[in-house]
């Protein structure tokens, strides 16, 4: 097997917050104790609800922010600031909202050539343009689109432009932050197919961030489920979806509506809302909302461990799932 493109070891990122007029300053552990590897040609999905640390993780992987704890390396090179310049071409990001992430005053051609202008000073204008046009073909845009402005495109086509721009420097790793969430269903499938095609042709690794479990189920190889900044379950996609071990994963799956009328599933109802990240409970972060909580859950933080794939829970769902399958 080829070397992983991305390795995270006990990765964490804290923020100092507050210290306003009355509030006392606090420490938010936006991401903590996060480990994973991602190999070329594979897709690792990070799922969880808003505030679970998905975007912070994306910002660390795309070299926008430095980890405050643990280690992160891309293509075997640690992502310390001294290395950011040489890593910049290895990792690129595509955001949810193509409108917000494209410069609306630039023509498509200029948008595509810009990363080359900055990072490939050796390239001539002609070479840049050739590369830009080649990339447009690759993502399914037409040659005449080169001189148009982003507002002349539909949402799906703008997302193609964003993908094309991300690929200009030939990165090995793409971070896809909710790449199809803003798109209509009929366009969503076009973009997902494009991502699959590009991955096959270019051997790209995808860190796929999404709250849409039906999309993740279709596109991912492996899944990390995050809750309040920490992974609570991780494993191969089929295992996690078919035999979820953490109660939170089960609740998340049961809350996801399925396009099957009368499927008649029991929905697991969660109490309360996500606690403030300033007040993460000492034991299991999910304990205040979990239906199986015991004293040990409130006191001792469960480790991410166990088989067939790790889950951070004192009372994983193994028997339940077995019973339901029987």
């Amino acid at each position: 097997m080829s070397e992983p493109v991305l390795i995270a070891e006990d990765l964490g990122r804290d923020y100092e917050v507050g210290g306003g007029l009355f509030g006392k300053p606090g420490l938010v552990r936006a991401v903590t104790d996060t480990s994973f590897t991602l190999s070329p040609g594979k897709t690792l999905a990070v799922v969880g609800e808003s505030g679970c640390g998905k975007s912070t993780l994306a910002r660390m992987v795309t070299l926008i922010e430095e980890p405050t704890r643990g280690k992160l390396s891309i293509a075997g090179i640690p992502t310390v600031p001294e290395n950011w310049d040489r890593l910049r071409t290895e990792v690129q990001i595509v955001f949810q909202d193509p409108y917000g992430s494209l410069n609306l005053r630039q023509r498509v051609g200029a948008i595509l050539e810009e990363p080359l202008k900055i990072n490939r000073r050796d390239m001539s204008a002609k070479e840049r343009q050739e590369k830009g046009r080649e990339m447009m073909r690759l993502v399914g845009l037409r040659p005449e689109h080169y001189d148009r402005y982003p507002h002349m495109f539909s949402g799906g086509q703008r997302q193609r432009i964003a993908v094309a721009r991300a690929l200009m420097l030939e990165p090995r790793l793409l971070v896809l932050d909710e790449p199809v969430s803003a798109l209509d269903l009929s366009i969503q499938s076009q973009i997902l197919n494009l991502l699959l095609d590009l991955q096959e042709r270019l051997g790209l690794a995808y860190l796929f961030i999404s709250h849409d479990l039906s999309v993740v189920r279709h596109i991912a190889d492996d899944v990390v489920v995050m809750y309040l900044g920490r992974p609570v379950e991780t494993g191969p996609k089929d295992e996690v979806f078919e035999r979820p071990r953490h109660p939170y994963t089960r609740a998340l799956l049961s809350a996801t509506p399925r396009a099957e009328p009368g499927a008649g599933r029991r929905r697991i109802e969660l109490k309360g809302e996500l606690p403030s990240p300033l007040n993460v409970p000492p034991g299991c972060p999910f304990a205040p909302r979990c239906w199986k909580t015991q004293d040990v859950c409130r006191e001792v933080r469960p480790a991410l461990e166990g088989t067939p794939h790790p889950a951070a829970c004192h009372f994983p769902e193994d028997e339940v799932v077995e019973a339901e399958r029987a």
Partner: protein
Amino acid sequence: MSLLRIRNLTVEFATGGGQFRAVDSVDVDVGEGEILAIVGESGSGKSVSMLATMGLLPWTATITADEMSFDGQDLRRLSGRARRQIIGRDLAMIFQEPMSSLNPCFTTGFQIREALRQHTDLNSRQRQDRAVELLTMVGIPDAERRLKAFPHQLSGGMNQRVMIAMAIACRPRLLIADEPTTALDVTIQAQILDLLTGLQRDTGMGLILITHDMGVVAETAERVAVQYAGQKVEDQPVADLFATPHHPYTAALLAALPERATERRLATIPGVVPGQHDRPQGCLFSPRCQFADERCRTVPPPVQPAELGRARCHYPLHAPEVAA
């Protein structure tokens, strides 16, 4: 009998580029105690058709219809007084963006009490009690304290519940919920949908749920209207719609769902929804339809009978074989 009955509703906006038809000959029927989902991609006219019903469109909109009635009363001929009796009271709406419809300058309590003041004869003590009761009903713990909060002090899910509390404050007979969960996390979405369907069961009100999420439709609705480019293209009971869609657009949408995928590559619908300036001659779906022929491209299709899902199509799918 229908609680809300709309026939041939068309809404056009005056825009810089000329008249733009956002809603095109739409019929709506929803009965007491019924849950109707209106599903369609963004821009298909779901919100505009319901805003027209509520009388909430700006002056740039031209609304025409053969009929728009609520409980037998013509919504277009209401006097100011009768209008206040119905809109906001018997007929209430939850809007797509909670933050844009809650006033940031007032506490949630003030806003709920104000809705009650306008539409009921409760005194101020009773209004406060009812406000507490409403927040508790929509699952907001610690209601008294939450009534003193401003919208920005609450989470998105909380604000959405406050909106629902305001909408149901006067016990509406029909509630229109426009994408009430689109901006929320799935576990909160599940809570809000359970809340809405629970209210509908307990009070017997009718519910129109506007959404673009086929999963939400499948789990919540009894009947589904599918909109495309301003037109209703299909209307069927939910199980039938998913099992035997009659309009090619509905069929294509269902096929594009990742959870229905049978292969790694998903089914797609080529092209995009027509815009103001490239509205096709015949069937609006014809440039993207795999079954389109010359007739589809030139002649607007008829609305098929109910057995064929009222599909607006020349060649509805799953039609019984016509004997030669």
